[in-house]
């Protein structure tokens, strides 16, 4: 069974390369915005979860130093979108080039997860890789090319079957 929308939540992951270390003076504007924006996210309808401690280029991420990691879970694409682009967060997005390098590659990915699931770094990296490799699809997509939770559930089931078959063949 595919279940209702509320059985699934939307995970988002992105990273950005800092123009200077976080404690450098040119990053002060960004640092001043970060905590209020996180607090705003947590108070936004549809917000579900984000990792508690800030993650900056930590060892479990393959992106090197001076990288800002961001991931969170939302009830729907719409609730995440309204926060990202129709709240005080938009101003930070508009000014992002002051603090972050130009992105040479895709740096943001969205995917559906079972409600209650908490994605870890491996899962985030894997989904971004999938998006980079295959372009937007039901298992890893973008705001501009979204997929529904039902489409994702079907694709996940197919993917699980194929993985099992491959494992059986190999074993």
């Amino acid at each position, binding site marked *: 069974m595919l279940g209702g929308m509320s059985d699934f939540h939307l995970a988002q992951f992105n990273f950005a390369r800092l123009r200077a270390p976080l404690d450098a003076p040119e990053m002060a504007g960004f640092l001043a915005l970060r905590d209020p924006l996180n607090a705003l996210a947590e108070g936004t309808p549809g917000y579900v979860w984000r990792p508690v401690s800030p993650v900056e280029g930590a060892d479990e991420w393959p992106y090197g130093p001076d990288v800002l990691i961001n991931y969170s879970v939302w009830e729907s694409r719409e609730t995440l979108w309204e926060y*990202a682009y*129709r709240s005080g967060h*938009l*101003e930070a997005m*508009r000014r992002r080039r002051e603090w972050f390098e130009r992105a040479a590659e895709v740096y943001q990915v969205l995917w559906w997860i079972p409600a209650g699931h908490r994605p870890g770094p491996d899962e985030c990296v894997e989904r971004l890789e999938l998006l980079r490799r295959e372009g937007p699809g039901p298992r890893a997509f973008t705001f501009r090319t979204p997929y529904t939770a039902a489409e994702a559930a079907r694709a996940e089931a197919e993917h699980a079957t194929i993985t099992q078959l491959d494992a059986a063949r190999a074993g």
Partner: protein
Amino acid sequence: MDDVEAIAALRDPVRRRLYEYVAAQDHEVSRNEAAEAMGVQRTLAAFHLDKLAEAGLLETTGRRLTGRSGPGAGRPAKLYRRAAAERVVSVPPRDYRTAAELLAEAAEEAELDERLWRAARLRGRELARDAGPVRGLDEAEALLARRGYEPVREQTPAGAVLRMRNCPFHVLSERFPPLVCGMNLALLEGAFEGSADLAPRMDPRPGWCCTVLAASKNNED
């Protein structure tokens, strides 16, 4: 109904005024309210409102205004609000929207935000030059209304602001928010550069234009 017919439905002057009235409200409008505001008979207002709904320019909902329900509560009042669909007619046919989307997509990929905003600021200055000097929120309100922003005055703890009910770049602003909302801000910055008492800034809210125009406290009209 196609776009030509939808727009043709606005040809009647009473109907057009009714449409503009409903579009300007921040709530759904009943037949009684519309009739009173326009100073016309309720049946005439109802006739034109339903024509506008048939044309797809307004949407209707039914709600009991009294809050009563069940038998004896009466029929729910028919309420009207502006339809979300956009209507464009161009003779001869033109498709600037596809061109705009492709240009925006390329600009975003190439990270040309700053270039776009510089062009928008220059265009804003040109608009201001054509419109003449603008002082105070009243004059700004008139200019913004002419540009299609549908400004509404709002009191905030920091003073009066104009908040815009309509985003003239709506579809693009949803597809490319930082790029296009930044462009709109730059356009307004350019337009009000010469008005020392007025300052546009971002203050996004769902369903509204992302920019507000604030009056500096000393010079508020």
